[in-house]
């Protein structure tokens, strides 16, 4: 039974991620007073891109073609480790969150290389910024995860995000709150959302994540966008499970509740994007360092 | 007999101070020669009864010949050869070298009493005069400019050691004094040659020229 729930959760992860992006765009549109694109628009975009023809720059080599493939594969493999809504992951083991973080790192590594392969200064700019901010975000992510390890006593993601998390809130409330906020900031940075990076800006000089994928087209662009949505879903699962601890006896009910939570997360994300403006590039490292300090503070609290 | 030996010791120390004060090289050489001659009389004066007179006589005569005649003669010859100027200006000036000499002598005399001599000192004044002569010799070497003056200083040091050697002459056989004489002869002989070469090389015996070897 446990494997069935895990499989269903994993399939939900694979299928519903683009919907998450749709909800976020819809919330931003509502805030802007527009009716916005239909919720299923991301699925249509993916189908359109998969059918289109790809144009490749003459300076690029096989690295450019491998970038999107490895990026997508890495995120899917990371999905195998994540537990969605309290249900255990498909392959849980102690220390799996380290593999989870490094798989995302692998995806980022190849995307940045693909960007540099095009030989254009804009893509180089994007790659440089991406790797710089990532190296600031990594410690913050790990600080929060160490806090979770200490709080829940287990070293695997499934163990950390299991059902008894709400009881732990009572004892370690403040530390977990700090960790949740820090995790949210890291999620925003990793998925190139507003305060750190603007997903639909057109001025290359200001972009970070978008400018890296500037030269991709056709199926490659589809893989990248699908990968980005999966990654957002993963981070969402982590934040939602940590923040909204609702005690449900049967796993099916908690799975449904988790999907509701994910919708709520999308709404929260939309509101943040609509209400805050982009930070100047030199402010972003300070934000991420602030997140690490919050994580460290939470660690000190919990280790006391 | 003790009165005479005491008189000789005081004369030796007196001559030390004269050498320190002398500004002319020729005068200094003659003073040191006289000191050597005087000292060579000491073995006779100090000879106690159970000593073989032949050995003491030979020693005294040898000392007289070497210290009094051979070495001063050689140094005067070296001076004529090098035709050097007469006067003898010490680096630190006459008065300070004199004062240093006097301090040395005073210290020697006051503390020699307190030194626990294991055997009966042949004469109370022997040890202090030996030490003060050695000290004067060292000052001469350290303060005089001329190479010949430094050899003179070395000569005075040897005289001091010779006097000290007398203390042991009764039980230490002939070897000790012979050692001193041998050392004296050899050192002065070689230095004579060197002075001759220095003069030929530098056309002056002033050691200020001899300072190019430096780190």
């Amino acid at each position, binding site marked *: 039974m446990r494997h069935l729930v895990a499989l269903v959760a994993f399939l939900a992860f694979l299928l519903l991620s683009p919907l998450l992006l749709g909800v976020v765009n819809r919330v931003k549109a509502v805030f802007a007073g527009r009716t916005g694109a239909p919720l299923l628009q991301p699925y249509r975009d993916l189908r359109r891109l998969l059918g289109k023809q790809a144009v490749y720059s003459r300076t690029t080599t096989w690295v450019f073609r491998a970038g999107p493939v490895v990026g997508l594969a890495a995120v899917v493999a990371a999905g195998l480790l994540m537990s969605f809504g309290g249900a255990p992951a498909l392959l849980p083991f102690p220390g799996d969150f380290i593999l989870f973080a490094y798989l995302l790192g692998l995806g980022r590594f190849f995307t940045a290389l693909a960007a540099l392969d095009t030989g254009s200064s804009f893509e180089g700019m994007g790659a440089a910024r991406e790797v710089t901010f990532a190296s600031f975000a990594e410690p913050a992510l790990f600080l929060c995860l160490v806090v979770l390890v200490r709080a829940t006593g287990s070293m695997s993601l499934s163990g950390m995000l299991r059902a008894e998390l709400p009881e732990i809130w009572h004892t370690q409330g403040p530390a977990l709150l700090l960790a949740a906020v820090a995790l949210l900031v890291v999620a925003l940075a990793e998925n190139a959302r507003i305060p750190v990076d603007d997903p639909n800006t057109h001025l290359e000089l200001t972009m970070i994540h978008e400018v890296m994928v500037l030269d991709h087209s056709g199926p490659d662009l589809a893989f990248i966008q699908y990968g980005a949505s999966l990654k957002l879903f993963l981070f969402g699962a982590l934040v939602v499970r940590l923040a909204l601890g609702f005690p449900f006896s049967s796993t099916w009910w908690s799975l449904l509740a988790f999907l509701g939570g994910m919708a709520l997360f999308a709404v929260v994300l939309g509101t943040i994007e609509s209400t805050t403006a982009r930070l100047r590039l030199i402010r972003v490292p300070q934000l991420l360092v602030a997140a690490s300090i919050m994580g460290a503070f939470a660690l000190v609290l919990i280790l006391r | 007999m003790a009165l005479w030996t005491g008189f000789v010791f005081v004369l030796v120390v007196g001559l030390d101070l004269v050498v320190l004060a002398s500004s002319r090289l020729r005068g200094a050489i003659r003073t040191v020669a006289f000191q050597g001659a005087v000292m060579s009389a000491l073995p006779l004066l100090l000879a106690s009864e159970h000593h073989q007179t032949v050995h003491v006589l030979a020693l005294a005569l040898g000392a007289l010949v070497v210290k009094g005649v051979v070495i001063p003669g050689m140094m005067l010859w070296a001076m004529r050869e090098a035709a050097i100027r007469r006067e003898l200006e010490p680096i630190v000036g006459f008065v300070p070298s004199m004062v240093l000499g006097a301090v040395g002598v005073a210290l020697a005399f006051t503390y020699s009493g307190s030194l*626990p001599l*294991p055997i009966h000192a042949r004469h109370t004044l022997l040890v202090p005069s030996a030490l003060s002569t050695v000290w004067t010799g060292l000052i001469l070497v350290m303060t005089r400019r001329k*190479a010949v003056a430094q050899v003179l200083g070395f000569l005075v040091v040897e005289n001091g050691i010779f006097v000290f050697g007398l203390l042991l002459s009764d039980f230490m056989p002939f070897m000790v004094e012979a050692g001193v004489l041998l050392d004296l002869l050899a050192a002065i002989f070689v230095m004579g040659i*060197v002075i001759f070469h*220095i003069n030929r090389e530098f056309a002056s015996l002033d050691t200020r020229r*001899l300072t190019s*070897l430096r780190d």
Partner: protein
Amino acid sequence: MLLLLLAPLAFAALAFAIPSGRIRPRVLLVGAVLHAAGVAALWVLRPGPALGGWLALDAAGLLTLSTVSAVFLASGVYVQGYLATHPERDNRVFVGSLLVLLSAMTGVSLAQNLGLLWVIIEITTLATAPLIYFKHDALSLEATWKYLMVCSLGIALALLGTFFLALASAGPGGPRTLLLSDLVAAGGTLSRPWVRIAFAFLLAGYGTKMGLAPFHTWKPDAYGEAPGVLGALLAAGVTNVAFLALVRVTTVCQAAGEGAFARGGLLGIGLLSILVAAVFMVGQRDFKRLLAYSSVEHMGILALGVGLGGAAAAGAFFHMVNNGLTKGVLFFAAGNIHRAFGSKQVDQVRGAARRLPISGPLFLLGFLAITGSPPFSPFFSEFAILSGAFHVGRPVVASVFLVLLALIFVTMGSTVLHIVQGDPGADEEPRQFHDRVLTAGPPLVLMLVVLALGLWVPDALTALFEAAASAVRG
């Protein structure tokens, strides 16, 4: 044993007699070979004392004698090549004094009577003077003058010290003699204050001959101006012999109960010598003077070793042998480099390894050996001294010793590497001074001996070190 002392004198007389300049070096070579054979015989026979106990062979004496004869043999071969390159200079005095020096050094190794010991050391001083003056130019004259003046003063103080020692033994019930064996036997009866004053004077006197710190000022001048072969003989022969004299005096102090005082003095002077050597090596522009300061440093290490006592004393004797051989290599190579480049200044000498394919690398290997790199034997002796320091419980001394060694390695290394590496550039005058069998052979053989000693120390030698150290050790 007496024969061994007189044979070189006979050869010296012969050398003086022979008119022609070409045959005289052969006489030197024959003398060296005979002397080495004699020493080998001594190793086997171990004869008893001669001349009524005044000449006897003990462990320390045999060690010094072997080092001296080994380096003299190498010098003998080297001199053949060296004099061939300087046909114009009259080598009568040179060869004669070398042989006199050899007999004097043999004498000191065997002398048991401290008075006799002092006289023979005086002879070594006089024999060395003309050798330093071999180049007959202004600088070597100045070096000779300074050498003579400082050493004669030192020797005079040593004589005074010997008298004090005789005085100490003349006390009530004392042995009233300067014979080493009697002094040691009657140790208790010697009057202690006089023994301490005697040790102070003798340390100053023989320290001057050995080149320890405050008395070392003659060494850089003499080694700097003397030809390479004399540098080797001085560093390996005369200084080791002076060290042997100091060891004899320390043995007497040890017997008289003043061992702690003697070892304290040696320790202090040893460390001071290494420090002074380190300070004066920094930025040294003349590589022969650099080797002179290295000799001051290693004499300091020997004094330190004996000063520490215990296992370090055995290490010190092992180091005496190693230091002698390695200094031989360094000075021969330095001599070759000096002749090949015509200058001693570090700025004008570049790429010695390229111009002198044997002497250049040997100079580098010699440097590595002297600073205690393991495959060579000085490493083991320095390590023995160091572990001795820790065993005796003096960690502060050991750490200061190590820091100074590191500093010396860095300073010496920069100069030596500067000389050996790089390309020499076009040499203006025709290359008549290059590596020849006679001039490059001896350092090569000595280097192989040092390497062999590093890999395999024969048990007989280790037994000797232990025996020599037991006399001095507290």
